[in-house]
């Protein structure tokens, strides 16, 4: 679908007003877009339900006054209709995923941080107190340094490290070239590391201790990453969701 925003706005307006011909055209042209997006979000069909529900709202549901209210009224023509549809779908799908995750039972029932408990059992039966202290210090340092990062750099990092987008996809979000993303990520990562070192020194650690801090990371298997342990059956999308 490659149309101008004005044409999209016109089509959306007509659909919102209940024009059957426009709705047919919308279904013909945009239904494949929406379903393709749903399949990309969840290849097991989970997002199709969201897409179908979206169709109902786009067609219009009657409010208390008996007037039909269509979701199309909120399309403002600031983007293409296809992108807007994908954005609505993505937002709803993510909301549903997050809601489902909140409803899932916590791994740790006795009040401790579930993540820590999982890591604790996974890392070692006999954790080294010094190493644990260094890792905790590093976490605090990282949190402080990340908190001071400019939002753009932080967004780039989040796209790459947390959302696990490729360099090209990260570039798409940041509107940067893939090579620029790569360069910027490397630069930011280097800066973070230097800032963390400075933070640790400010916290009273000596040079050798700071080095030991980082060295402890190489010994520390780090947070338990289940993905390599579990074979493919876990869908990639769900795996990504876990990292949020």
């Amino acid at each position, binding site marked *: 679908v490659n149309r101008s925003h004005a044409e999209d*706005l016109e089509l959306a307006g007509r659909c919102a007003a209940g024009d059957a011909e426009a709705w047919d055209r919308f279904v013909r042209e945009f239904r494949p877009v929406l379903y393709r997006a749903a399949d990309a979000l969840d290849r097991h069909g989970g997002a199709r339900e969201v897409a179908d529900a979206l169709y109902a709202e786009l067609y219009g549901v009657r409010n208390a006054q008996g007037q039909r*209210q269509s979701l199309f009224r909120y399309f403002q023509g600031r983007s293409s209709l296809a992108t807007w549809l994908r954005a609505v779908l993505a937002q709803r799908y993510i909301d549903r995923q997050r809601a489902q995750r909140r409803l899932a039972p916590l791994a740790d029932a006795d009040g401790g941080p579930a993540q820590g408990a999982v890591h604790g059992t996974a890392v070692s039966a006999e954790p080294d107190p010094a190493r644990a202290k260094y890792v905790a210090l590093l976490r605090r340092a990282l949190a402080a340094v990340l908190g001071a990062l400019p*939002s753009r750099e932080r967004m780039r990092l989040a796209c790459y490290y947390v959302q696990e987008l490729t360099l090209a996809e990260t570039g798409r979000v940041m509107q940067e070239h893939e090579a620029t993303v790569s360069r910027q990520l490397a630069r930011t990562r280097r800066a973070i590391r230097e800032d963390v070192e400075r933070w640790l020194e400010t916290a009273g650690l000596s040079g050798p201790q700071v080095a030991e801090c980082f060295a402890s990371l190489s010994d520390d298997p780090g947070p338990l990453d289940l993905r390599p342990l579990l074979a493919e059956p876990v869908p990639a999308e769900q795996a990504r969701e876990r990292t*949020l």
Partner: protein
Amino acid sequence: MTNGFDKLLRESLAAEPADGNGADCPDAAIVAAWFDGTLSAAERTAVEAHAAACGRCQATIAALVRTDRPAPRAWWRAPAVQWLPVAVAAGVSLIVWTGVLRRGDDAVQAPAAASAQLESSSRPSAGTPVSGEERGRGAPAERAREADAPSQPAPSPDAEARERDAKARERVDERAQRARVAPERTVGAGPVKAVPETPVDTQKAQASVSTPPPQAHESVARSDALIPPSAGVAGAAPPPPPAPAAPRMEVQQATPMIDAARRSAERGFVQSVAGAAGRSGGRALIQSPDRSVRWRIVGRGQVERSIDEGLSWQVQTTGVNAVLVAGAAPSATVCWLVGGRGVVLKTTDSGQTWTRVAFPEEIDLVGVVADDDRVATVTAAGGRQLRTSDGGGSWR
């Protein structure tokens, strides 16, 4: 260590974002505009600042990126298949060409063999090896037809010409031989390879992007199932125009900071969307200050005007075949209209004549506010605004 540090970095980043409940998040329209790159710099900065600290928005953006995949290419658009017509055409051309050559050769040689009236120069004898091409085209029937063909008086054969023909035939036979041995794509390698591969592929790729996937029949076949089954929806007549102050739905939740940034940019746009909210039967309504006078956009380049509060309408043709999206009527006689690709129209005589106002850019215009017939501000799809204070003579 690098791996450990990266893991820790990833974990810290994932742990940091606030678990936004969506109330402060930009709505889908803003996210989509961000993705399409149509936000202003200020808006973009505001959205980025929010998303950098919001896990929900990060996930939404990531999901949006992942869904931004090109349509799967239909089998008939596969590069190998797309070459097929070219290869077939080239093959047919080759066969026809060689057939013509052979026919011409036979026409020269048949009389020589039949009547021996012409000089007994180099006609290929029965012992001449049958070329691959001959074998390939079902030679017996073909040759029988050729033999049955009425003999034409041959022009007096020139030895040089015959030699040239013989050489040409050999070349053709060689090509046919190669074509049979090579895969399908290289059939008629000569003519096909004359077409540069990369530009053609690029053109096809562009065509496949710019044209909708040919799934119309499938979509139509399934479209019945898509009509929502909700009660009171199916078969419902078009509802009356929704009120401009319609209740906000969840996708319309705007961040206050984003609102502040975009309020000024969208002032005119929101007014045009109010026009959309005030659509009548799918037609954008443009109300003039005079209560009884109003316009409405009814189609490509067509508007209607009412002077009795919409009880009756008179069709007006603007003379421009363009999508019209929004309008503004600062008085009962003046009306501005805007649409796709930089279309700006204006009337100052109640619509008896419409003039296309020159606009500097071919961008989609989605809103207009006008003070009179000289001062107007149009809003582009990206939120950018241009203003004229001399009736459209200049914009800035």
